[in-house]
């Protein structure tokens, strides 16, 4: 069981109508890994997240979370998964506490245990004082922290964050980035972080580059820099995208 990857994406394909969004995509994520999924807007990151969370079903291939097929053993697979979507998914008219308690009930968590977890996560994310405030009244950074806290309530073993820092100011981005990395180290979570903000990467991060629905490169940041003979990941990324992109830049 220990050799089972946290996430196994096995040759999946998906299309919206006739437009292929993901083509024969495969990769694995081991437990404890911090992997960053890089890609331009429209590369297929959000679609990939929707497939892993079973919002859609792939047209070909399979997805396994800790050995459980997302479509065939969805209960076992999804209870190990924590997700923060790019789009805000909190109920803006409910309070922070109500939102978090609602989430615990969707995971079937018993009330006493749920209350303990909510209190703990609110403390960890510095949100205790906002517990009874409606989400609508919180700032963008606070809402993101609530969403991350919520995704951890059921103690998942695999976390997926889709552009969690998009639209946030620098200090909020930094705070969330640090917090997530700390969680990964301390809790041993496998983590998949989708972003197009390259400056959030560190040299030892695992990187997956998605371009036009295909995985065009993967490996540690420093390895990709070496392989492409560039100075930094920004240049390496641009080079990789350019090599595989037939279109001329504007």
């Amino acid at each position, binding site marked *: 069981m220990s050799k089972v990857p946290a996430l196994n994406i096995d040759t999946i394909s998906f299309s919206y109508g006739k437009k292929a969004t993901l083509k024969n995509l495969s990769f694995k994520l081991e437990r404890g890994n911090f992997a960053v999924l890089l890609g331009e807007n429209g590369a297929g990151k959000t679609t990939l997240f929707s497939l892993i969370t079973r*919002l859609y079903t792939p047209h070909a291939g399979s997805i396994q979370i800790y050995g459980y097929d997302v479509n065939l053993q969805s209960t076992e697979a999804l209870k190990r998964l924590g997700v923060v979507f790019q789009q*805000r998914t909190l*109920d803006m*008219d409910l309070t922070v506490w109500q939102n978090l308690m609602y989430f615990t009930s*969707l995971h*079937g968590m018993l*009330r006493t245990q749920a209350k303990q977890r909510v209190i703990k996560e609110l403390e960890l994310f510095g949100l205790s004082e906002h517990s009874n405030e409606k989400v609508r009244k919180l700032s963008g950074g606070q809402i993101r922290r609530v969403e991350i806290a919520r995704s951890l309530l059921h103690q998942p073993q695999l976390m997926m964050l889709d552009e969690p820092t998009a639209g946030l100011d620098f200090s909020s981005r930094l705070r969330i980035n640090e917090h997530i990395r700390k969680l990964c180290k301390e809790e041993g979570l496998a983590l998949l972080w989708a972003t197009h903000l390259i400056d959030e990467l560190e040299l030892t991060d695992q990187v997956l580059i998605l371009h036009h629905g295909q995985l065009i490169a993967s490996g540690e940041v420093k390895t990709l820099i070496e392989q492409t003979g560039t100075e930094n990941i920004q240049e390496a990324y641009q080079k990789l995208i350019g090599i595989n992109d037939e279109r001329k830049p504007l």
Partner: protein
Amino acid sequence: MNIINYLRCFIGIIQREALRFLQQQGRFFAALVRPLVWLFIFAAGFRSILGVSIIPPYETYVLYEVYITPGLLGMIQLFNGMQTSLSMVYDREMGSMKTLLISPLPRWFLLTSKLCAGVLISIFQSFVYLFIAWFWEVEAPFYGYLALVPALCLSGLMLGSLGLFISSVIKQLENFAGVMNFVIFPMFFASSALYPLWRIKESSLLLYNIVTWNPFTHAVELIRFALYAQVNYYSLIYVSISCVVFLSLAIWGYDPSRGSLARIKGN
């Protein structure tokens, strides 16, 4: 996942819908004012024009207000079912639908729980309406009020399932106006809610046939008989089958592999 986990999830969904309902007081008053306007104004105006003969379950001539009350209870449930549909589309656009759909519990269970929450709210609204109508001399036997609860549950589930199915095929919130024109109004007016079936038959045989096929007619008749502690078995079977069909369609609609969600990019 055992039965306690399922129960906790069910209660959580009910609580969330109840909280939203309490916060949307306008929705409660709108749901109540609509049938009351029909009762106070429409029924008062038409009571002298529309005579109602003695038809089951009535044992004597009844006031028009009494006749249309089951239809107005059906109206509350019909609008509530469509409100469920509207809120599902809204939740989908706002993103909060994802929170529900990524739960590890089976999707059919999540959707049915959401449906039950809507039905409970509609039953509450129905009894508030009946309480007000009681002052308007619209009364039913005590056991009728008790028998009404399961009838409202079943009819509410059927209409809510229809709403749920509609929400799975509606792409945008803006398309919802079409639901009013093509679902709510035809269902309500082409039914026995406002006029008895024999009167419709006298006017138009085609319309009569349409009305007898309309599931809303049978929901109204089920409620009408229940209000007098009786069972209209034909309507009971018709509503039950319709409920299973609509619920199956709704679950199919939200199935990630076959339904329409995948066609609605951005969910």
